[in-house]
């Protein structure tokens, strides 16, 4: 069940990301970017990173995308106003991106990324309580230490 959800969300995310890049109207691009970000939030939820799920929706879908939408409405861009690049340079861009993808996949295909350790696994690390402890405990201690050094 979980793996089917993962692959479905992955497919949706990549589809919406492609639509962001290739849709003609900038307003549609922003709307597809919002959908992409909601799909990524679903990925965070699957990974049990609930704090990042909430922050992603609030900060990205709630604040950044509204800012984008506001600027696009403000500038009043029309879809025919954007001059297109020549077909050759578009093709070159897509080929360059595709070759980067091929190189990265070939380099990372055999890499042993490791996996979870069932003995020490803690599924609660993405929750607000634990992240707050790490954020205000460990990281703030280091900041205070840096300040006392200077």
């Amino acid at each position, binding site marked *: 069940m*979980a*793996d089917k*959800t993962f692959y479905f969300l*992955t497919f949706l*995310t*990549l589809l919406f*990301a*492609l639509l*962001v*890049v290739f849709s003609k109207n*900038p307003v549609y691009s922003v709307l597809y970017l919002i959908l*992409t970000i909601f799909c*990524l939030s679903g*990925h*965070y939820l*699957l*990974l*049990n*990173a609930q*704090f*990042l799920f909430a*922050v*992603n929706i609030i*900060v990205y879908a709630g604040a*950044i995308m509204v*800012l*984008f939408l506001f600027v*696009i409405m403000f*500038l009043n*861009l029309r879809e025919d*106003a*954007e*001059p*297109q*690049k020549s077909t050759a340079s578009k093709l070159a*861009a*897509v080929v*360059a*991106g*595709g070759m980067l*993808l091929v190189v*990265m*996949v070939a380099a*990372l*295909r055999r*890499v042993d*990324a*490791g*996996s*979870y350790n069932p003995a*020490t*696994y*803690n*599924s609660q*690390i*993405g929750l607000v309580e634990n*992240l707050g402890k*790490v*954020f205000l405990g*460990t990281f703030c201690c280091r900041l205070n230490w840096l300040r006392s050094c200077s």
Partner: protein
Amino acid sequence: MEEIPGVIRTIPLNHYIFFSTALFVIGIVGVLVRRNALIIFMSVELMLNAVNLLLTAFSAYRSDASGQVFVFFIMAVAAAEVSVGLAIIVMIYRNNRSVDIGILNRLKW
């Protein structure tokens, strides 16, 4: 020590690496293909999100909370960066009546 999430049990970490790579490459292609500065900016956001997802995936698989704290920092910086960048784009539009990056090559002189 609760139950391990189903995704972490069934999906290998390599699939997250490939997925993030694909999302990052889509962002790069967007930067290279489009001429509208706003769309280019959105593609940069896509790349940032790909990196965020990979950091979260590694953090969740390794059960180490530092990665998710880094993602939180990245989100804070991205929000600040978007506000500054959009202000720059609005000023470019007020000067040129267009957000086409082809016009910006006069920055050379």
